[in-house]
Each structure stands twice: as C-alpha cells, then as structure tokens.
C-alpha cells in the first residue's frame, strides 16, 4: 500500500533519516522503534506528506505522494507526538472542532463524537477542559481526534509517553481492536520494546537516522540466534570485574546497570566457568548468572551496543 524508497532528510549537516526503505501493507500494524533522535518522527512526517524529503520517494498505491499528496492525506489519521489539541477547550469541543475541519456536520458529527468518546473512555469527562485532564486522558483524546474521519491508515507517534500503566494498556488494547475490528492499518512508533512486541506484526528499528533491522518479530529475534544473552547480578559490582569482562575476547557486548551486567556471547561458548573465575579474581560475590531468552531490547543492544532507553 505504502512504500518508502531511499528516503533521506537532511537538516543542515545532520541526516535525521538516511536511505530509509520501508513498506506497509493494508491491515498491518507496523512498528517503528528507536531511541530519542533516531529519526522516527521525521520519517513519519515524510511518509504522511507533512515534510518533503531531501531525496527519495514515498509511493502510495504506486504513485508518488510528493507531487500529489491529497490521496494519502485523505486516508491518514495522525496522532502527533505532542498533545495536538486546544487545551483550553473541552474534550467534546475539541472533537467538534476537528470534526468540522473534516467537514462533518449535524447528526453525523454528533454521533461520531459520542462513538469516539465511548471508544477512548472519556464519555463522562466530555465537558471537562482538556487542560485539567491527566496525561493519560490527554493522550487518549489525542488519539480520538485522529479517528473522527474513519481513517484507513492511522499513524501514531509515541502515543503512550509519560502516562500511567492503565491508560497505556487501554491505548494498546484500543489500537489492537481498531486493527482487528475495523481493519485499520497502523504505523506505531515507540521506544518501548514491549509495546511494539505486543502490537506489531512487523518491525523496523532505527538508530541515528539509519535503519538497523527490519522484519517480523521472529525474524528480528533470529538475528540473535548465533548469540545468547547472559545477565549477571551482584550487589556490589566492582570495576575490576567489569573491566575483565570487557577484556574477554569471547564477549561481544557488556552493558552495566546498577547491580546488573548484561553480556552477549556466541551460542556455542559456555561462559559460566569464565564468569565465575573472573568474579573470584575480582573478589566479587555473585547473586545469579542467567541465560535470557532474547528480547527486542537485546537485539537493539546487539546491533548498537547501547540500551534502547539511556
């Protein structure tokens, strides 16, 4: 349905997005994953015709949107990263305003507003001023506004940042339902692995403007099939131990968190004896050493040597 071809966007010297290739089929939920500044927002601004690419093309049903953006604009429901609402107006007034912008009127508009308030669970708060809403409620309304005109393709830019777990689950469930019941195609950007793992059929992972991995969840996890992730826990981690892990040629990645070190090693190597030996030499008391089933987080770690959220 939608295809991004060698898409790049350059801001002065910086490539926000570099040679991005992507495709989205009708009815899919596609995840776009990456840390801050990866270029997610820039990418979706280009694919929704809001920003012109420096080079490359976006094709919708095989026709470039650069010259003629109106076909794609008609089917997009956009959920911007920020709260794109009039916060001085009530929930209902916001829906009415954006509904009118989409040329909805009278009974049709009224019915649509009721339907959406129901969907996002704000029916009994409809008269309240948005400014007084919680973060989660604002986020829900931010999504609701994008659904007024029954879009075929809904694009969500980090729709769950800074909200409570309940609201977050509510939103994730809602997105899934929209996809299943109304066959909406969804592009979902996030820097939360769990969300993308839960929602998406296919995933694109970006970092610093580059696409670093793509495929179905399983395909991506298979990147790690030649390696395994081991988590070492200890109350008093010391530098000697960490340094010696880093020196070890068989260990390809060492990530230190408080009381926890994550290392990546080739699958065939039994690293346990080596770890125990190093711990003893460093006079370190270990709490546990575990092999972890790989997650997307690990893939990211593997590909970039950095944690997704640092």
């Amino acid at each position, binding site marked *: 349905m939608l295809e991004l071809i060698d898409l790049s966007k350059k801001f002065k010297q910086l490539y926000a997005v570099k040679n991005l290739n992507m495709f989205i089929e009708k009815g899919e939920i596609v995840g776009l994953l990456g840390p801050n500044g990866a270029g997610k927002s820039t990418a979706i601004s280009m694919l929704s015709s809001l920003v012109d690419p420096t080079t490359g093309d976006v094709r919708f049903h095989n026709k470039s949107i650069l010259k003629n953006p109106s076909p794609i*604009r008609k089917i997009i429901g956009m959920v*911007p990263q*920020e709260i*794109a*609402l*009039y916060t001085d107006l009530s929930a209902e007034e916001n829906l009415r*305003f954006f509904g009118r*912008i989409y040329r909805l009127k009278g009974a049709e508009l009224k019915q649509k507003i009721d339907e959406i308030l129901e969907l996002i669970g704000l029916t009994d708060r409809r008269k309240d001023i948005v400014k007084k809403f919680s973060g989660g409620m604002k986020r829900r309304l931010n999504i609701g506004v*994008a659904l007024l005109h029954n879009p075929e393709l809904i694009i969500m830019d980090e729709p769950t940042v800074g909200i409570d777990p309940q609201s977050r689950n509510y939103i994730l469930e809602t997105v899934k339902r929209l996809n299943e019941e109304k066959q909406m195609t969804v592009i979902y950007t996030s820097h939360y692995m769990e969300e993308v793992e839960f929602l998406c059929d296919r995933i694109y992972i970006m970092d610093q403007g580059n696409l670093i991995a793509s495929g179905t969840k399983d395909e991506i996890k298979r990147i790690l099939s030649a390696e395994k992730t081991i988590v070492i826990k200890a109350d008093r981690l010391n530098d000697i131990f960490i340094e010696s892990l880093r020196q070890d040629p068989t260990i390809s990645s060492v990530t230190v968190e408080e009381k926890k070190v994550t290392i990546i090693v080739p699958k065939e190597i039994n690293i346990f004896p080596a770890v125990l030996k190093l711990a003893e030499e460093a006079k370190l008391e270990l709490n546990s050493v575990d092999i972890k089933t790989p997650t997307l987080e690990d893939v990211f770690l593997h590909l970039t040597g950095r944690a997704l959220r640092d």
Partner: protein
Amino acid sequence: MIGILLAKIKIFIRYPLTFLAMVVMSIGFALLIGGGNGNVINVPTYIADEAIHGTVVEDILNDSEAFNFETMSKDEVEDKIANGKAEIGVELYEGDFRVIVGVESPNVGLVKQTVEGAYSKKLQYEQLFAAANATTDSDKEAVKTDLEKAIADPVFSIQANNFRGSDAVIIDNRYHTLFGFTLFFVIYTIAYNVFHILEEKNNGVWDRIILSPARKWEMYVANFMYSFGTGFLQVLIIFLVFRFWVGIEFGGNFGKAILVLIPYVFSIVALSILITGIVKTVQQFNAVIPIIAVSMAMIGGAFWPLEIVSSKLMLVLSKVVPITYGMEVLNGVAIYGYSFSEILYPISILLLMGVVMTGIGIHLMEKRHV
C-alpha cells in the same frame, strides 16, 4: 476558517484575563501619567480691558486644549513670571495683546500664535458685524451663529485651525500618554495571540489541519483575523473609556481616531507574524517581545514626544517603527484636526509595513517547517 476563528473566540471569551489586564494597564498608566490638569501649560493672563469679556477672544482662549489661560491681576501675572512659576504670561487689551516671556521655549511661539489667532478672529467677526449692521448683542449673536453654521457646514472649505503652522507643535500630555500607552500595550495582546501560530505548529495542530480538507491559508487568515480583532477591540475599549468616562474629546474627531487605529493594529499583527517567523522557541519569544515593545515605544515616541528627541540616530530609527506613525496619525487627527488626506502618508507607511512584514513572516514560518 470560520470554525477556526470561532474556536479561538470561544477560548478568548473563556479566558479574558490577560486581555483585561492589558486594557486596565493601558488605562491605568495613561490616567496616572497623563492625568490631571497639571500637564496643560498654565498661562497667567491679565485682562487689561474689560471689553475683551464676552468676545470671541475669550472663547477661543478658554477652548484651548494645550494651554490654560488663567485670568488674574497684573501683579500676580508678573509675580508668577518673575518667580519662574510660569514660562509665559499674556496681557489682553481691546485690540492688542502683550506676551511676557519668562523662559524662551517652543511654547512661547505657540501661545503667541494662539492669542494672535483669537484676535484675528475677533477682528474678522467685528468686520462681519459691521458689514451685517449688527449693533445689538442679540444681532451679533445671530450673525455669530450663522457664521459658525457656515463654518461647520462649509460650501467651500475654510482653513479654520490656528495650530496648523508648519512648524507648530502641540504637546498635550494627556493625549500623548493616552495614545502612547494604548499603542504600547496593544503590542503585547497582539503578539501573544499571533504567537499561538507557533504553538499550534509545534504541538501538531497545524499538521492535523494540513492533512484535513481545510487549507493552510485558512489557518493563517483565521489567526490573522483573530489577532487583529482582539487588538482592535482592546484599543477600542480604551478609547471608549477615555471618551465617555474620562471625557477626553479627541479634538472632536473620535470616530476618525478609531479609524486610524486600523492601519496601526494591522502593522502590529504583521510585526508579530514576522517575529513569530524568526524566533524558534517560546522562551525566545517571551524574551524578545518585551524588548521589542519597549524599545519601539521609546524610539517611536510613545513614552515621550519625538519632538523633544534630538539624537539624529533615534530620529532615523523612529522612521522604521510602526509606533511612530501610529502616534503621528492619532496626534494628527485628535490634536491637529487633520483630514484623512493629510495623514495619508503615515497611513500608507503602516499599511506597507504590514504587507511586507506579513509576507516575510509567513515565508519564514513556512520555510522553517519544511
């Protein structure tokens, strides 16, 4: 577009506080600083010949908005001048007058001109009375009424204003502070309303609208109309308060004074669009607006009259500041009684500035977003 405008008006009505604060501040400052009669220049006046009473000379002098001709004895007049309590005094004789100058200032010429004008008017009337054979007071009154009617409703235009000498300057503090603060404070109201454009662009409201069937120009037009409307409403309220509550006459040209605010408000909306196009963040905007508003007000003569500014640089700078022309048109209309054609020049400059700044501002905003 109507929908966008209505949403903004709804928000405006719901949160009128900032707007009201600006109105109250303008009125407060204008009253406080321009208030009282102390700012009208007192001219101690000795009537040497009782025949002056009841003549047009007395009427004209009493009607002067810039000077307060205060009658007193000859000794008192001389005393005041000698003690420096007054710059100038006048003595009025039947067919002649004398100006006593304590301190040389531009006001001397103006007082002279005012009194001279009054006497020449008196002479004119007397000749008319003679021509019309009016001897009794009631006859004279009738001729005078006819004359005034004729002047008010001219078949051909009579240059009736004494103040019009090419280098005559009237500095009436009441008007000056009223106009100055009105023009100054409205910059804030307008600028903050225009600034909503930037907020809407940053938070994605614009993206939503661009993707919708509504067009981008509708956003610009609606924002422009809204900012213009609130700005104009503010100056209108202030002028209405001063006209009907404080009782300032605007030289009998109240309606015109309101009309000439339109090009000024327009140019300030445009200036705000330009600034919004240049700044990048809310913080920058909040820092820049007071600086621009205050320095423009100083350069453009909103706080003190440009006539007392001698720095060449400041005078040159004043030529590029909308406030200068805003003050010029208001003073022209309310104090000098100019007609529209006589203030066409400053009005055109304001409109031109408006068009140019709007153009550049929108261009900058568009360029940055892409």
